[in-house]
């Protein structure tokens, strides 16, 4: 039982904290707000040089073999700086899906290129009709003479238009035409039949919805050798939720720190806002929820390699609880900044929106409390 950081982890935290504080300033955010790419390739190169893109990748594939704790340290700092680089899409989700599902040859071909910053990935999985059910995929993949043909629609593809390749989930039709296992397919951006509707994402970065109309892919576009990809998707999404939880903690901590400062400086009725007990108690509640969120994010990271039910319970518990805390902290931060909190003149709104995006990604609190209850044998999902 030891929850203290190792020396290496401490160094990692110091370096990412420093980098984020120096690089991701309010000015930087203003400059990149309308950037069609949503992130800076120069900064991505620096991420690679710092070893962050290699962090969770196995050493055999050019990585550093780090785990969920290290990812959490990076993500928390990224939250403080509202970083919009496609780290979650490419490293936390993309590289992990390749590592979980890909053949040895595919891993050798893809993972070292991610580590060196030469390849970015996005995960196209969610569909409108699925709500947050990871198993619900209507997009189909049909075997053709030369490979595969994919058709369907995806929503909420983070960084979809900004990356070099998409990982698209599709249900593989059986020989008799009935739908079967889930497969994951590598689809290079710009492939014929792919239509992207790119948008500026709530809270920073880009996202897109996309249609696949008879997209033709080579046989080796399928990750792995035909096993059902659902367990891997669940594993990777659970870990992504732990990582997102850490990012949310960084955002919430920033909102708390900023709001605390503001209530000390802002004077009304001849005294600082923070002299009022109603404000002090509100801030105590905010601090408490930030701390609870911190505990839950850490817990989900520590359980990232547990057996599936324990891992999923921890991930859903964290997602639900942190989501609930995040909404409270975000709304109170705006409230305590008064009218200024509702304007684009302060940074508060940007942090608020990133937390709102966090809460809805992969399902909100209600969905994850239900999933937790189902995994606990209490109800059927």
């Amino acid at each position, binding site marked *: *039982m*030891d*929850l*203290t*950081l*190792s020396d290496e*982890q401490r160094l990692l935290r110091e370096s990412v904290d420093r980098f984020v504080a120096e690089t991701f300033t309010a000015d930087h955010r203003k400059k990149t707000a309308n950037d069609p790419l949503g992130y800076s390739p120069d900064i991505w190169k620096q991420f690679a040089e710092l070893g962050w893109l290699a962090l969770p990748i196995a050493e055999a594939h050019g990585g550093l073999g780090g785990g969920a*704790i290290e990812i959490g340290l990076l993500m928390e700092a990224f939250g403080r700086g509202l970083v919009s680089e496609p780290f979650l899409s490419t490293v936390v989700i993309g590289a992990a899906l390749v590592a979980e599902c890909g053949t040895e040859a595919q891993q050798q071909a893809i993972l070292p290129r991610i580590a060196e910053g030469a390849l970015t990935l996005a995960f196209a999985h969610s569909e409108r009709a699925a709500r947050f059910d990871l198993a619900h995929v209507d997009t189909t993949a049909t075997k053709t003479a030369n490979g595969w043909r994919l058709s369907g629609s995806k929503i909420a593809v983070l960084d979809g238009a900004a990356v070099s390749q998409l990982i698209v989930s599709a249900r593989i039709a059986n020989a008799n035409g009935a739908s079967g296992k889930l497969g994951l397919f590598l689809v290079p951006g710009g492939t014929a039949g792919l239509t992207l509707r790119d948008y500026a994402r709530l809270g920073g970065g880009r996202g897109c919805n996309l249609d696949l109309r008879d997209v033709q892919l080579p046989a080796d576009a399928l990750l792995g050798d035909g096993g059902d990809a659902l367990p891997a998707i669940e594993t990777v999404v659970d870990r992504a939720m732990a990582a997102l939880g850490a990012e949310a903690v960084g955002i919430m901590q920033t909102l708390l720190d900023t709001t*605390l400062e503001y*209530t*000390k400086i802002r004077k009304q009725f001849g005294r600082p806002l*923070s002299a009022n*007990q109603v404000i*002090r*108690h509100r*801030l*105590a*509640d905010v*601090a*408490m929820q930030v*701390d*609870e*969120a911190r*505990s*839950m994010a*850490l*817990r989900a990271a*520590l*359980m990232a390699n547990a057996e599936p039910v324990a891992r999923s319970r*921890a991930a859903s*518990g964290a997602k*639900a*609880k942190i989501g609930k805390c995040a909404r409270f902290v975000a709304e109170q931060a705006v409230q305590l900044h008064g009218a200024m909190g509702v304007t684009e003149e302060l940074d508060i709104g940007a942090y608020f929106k990133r937390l709102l995006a966090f809460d809805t990604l992969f399902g909100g609190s*209600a969905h994850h*409390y*239900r999933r*937790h*209850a189902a995994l*606990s044998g*209490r*109800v059927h999902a």
Partner: protein
Amino acid sequence: MDLTFSAEERAFEREVRDYISETLTPEMKRATALTPSVFSDPDIGMAWQRALHSKGWGAPGWPVEHGGPDWTPAQRWIFEAECARAGVPNVNVMGVKMVGPVIIGFGSPEQQNFYLPRILSGEDYWCQGYSEPGSGSDLSSLKTRAVRDGDDYIINGTKIWTTHAHHANRMFALVRTSDGERQQDGISFILIDMKTPGITTRPILTIGGDHEVNQVFFDDVRVPVANRVGEEGKGWTYGKYLLEFERGSGIASAKLREALKTITDLAGSEVTGRAIEDPDIAMRMSEVEVDIDALEMTELRVLSALQTGQNPGAVSSLIKLRVSEIRQAVTRLGVDVIGQDGLAVEPARPFYRLNHEPAIPEELLPVVPEYLNGRAYTIFGGSSEIQRDIIAKMVLGL
């Protein structure tokens, strides 16, 4: 980072589990499950204290020279968790966990030699004389006065919310020995024999129907000056030291988890018509369980800091606040789970020794009283409002 315990700690866990299963009788377990007040009655609680003492485990937090077992923070965690899991009696904390540490920290060698062994063995049963009718959250405004008369103090005044005063043979009390500039000055920490002439006790029933607290009156009560702990007028410092223990003492998540499990088991059984099939109940159970997970992790973060010799900081207020709120959420869930059987009021006590067949199944009896009595969790030991004041000041620096 690592959530698992070492092989030695696992072995210790087995030792604790084995000892509990050998020692905890079915009667103690049933009595504990059927007790809707905070602490077990002394016949049950002290029987367990004696069992722990005979193993050398009577006071986990005490230094070894006074009879503590010299456990690491991890061992204390394991011990508390195993006790919670097994459903051991809730021993009144006033002795081992409250007055004990004050006597160890500030008492004279004579006081230590006399009182500490009697706390460990359960020979003495303590109550706490802090609150007064006019001094609740504003504790240091207390008015019970001790006037020096030769080698004695003569005490007049009244204390209230005195848990188990009707069972206790000793009380530790904060009394006013002088009037200082600040109301915190001039308070002294005194040990009182409850059999001293002039002490009377009035029972106060809580809304759950339990007699756990009392009002105690002092009418020219003569107490030797030798019974004062530490310096005259410094009692507030000692009293606050003890309140920190009260707030941060022990590990609450394991107990809360067991309380939730009890409610979950009831919800899954025919005795509640399988309340768990209500999706709203099932979801709220998950919500409370996740809150307990967060609390447990916070407690483990504190434990880890203690293990490595770091100061965990002012988190005890934060933990006290969450523990009390979660405890109330569990009991509220309990009331919803048992549904209309909650209408039946059973006034007789204790539930584990009724002379008649109760109107509802026995295991349902404590559920509503626990909820009702449990409203006190956010009030005693510094109300939630006081805890928020402390967090604002100590954690946020406001």
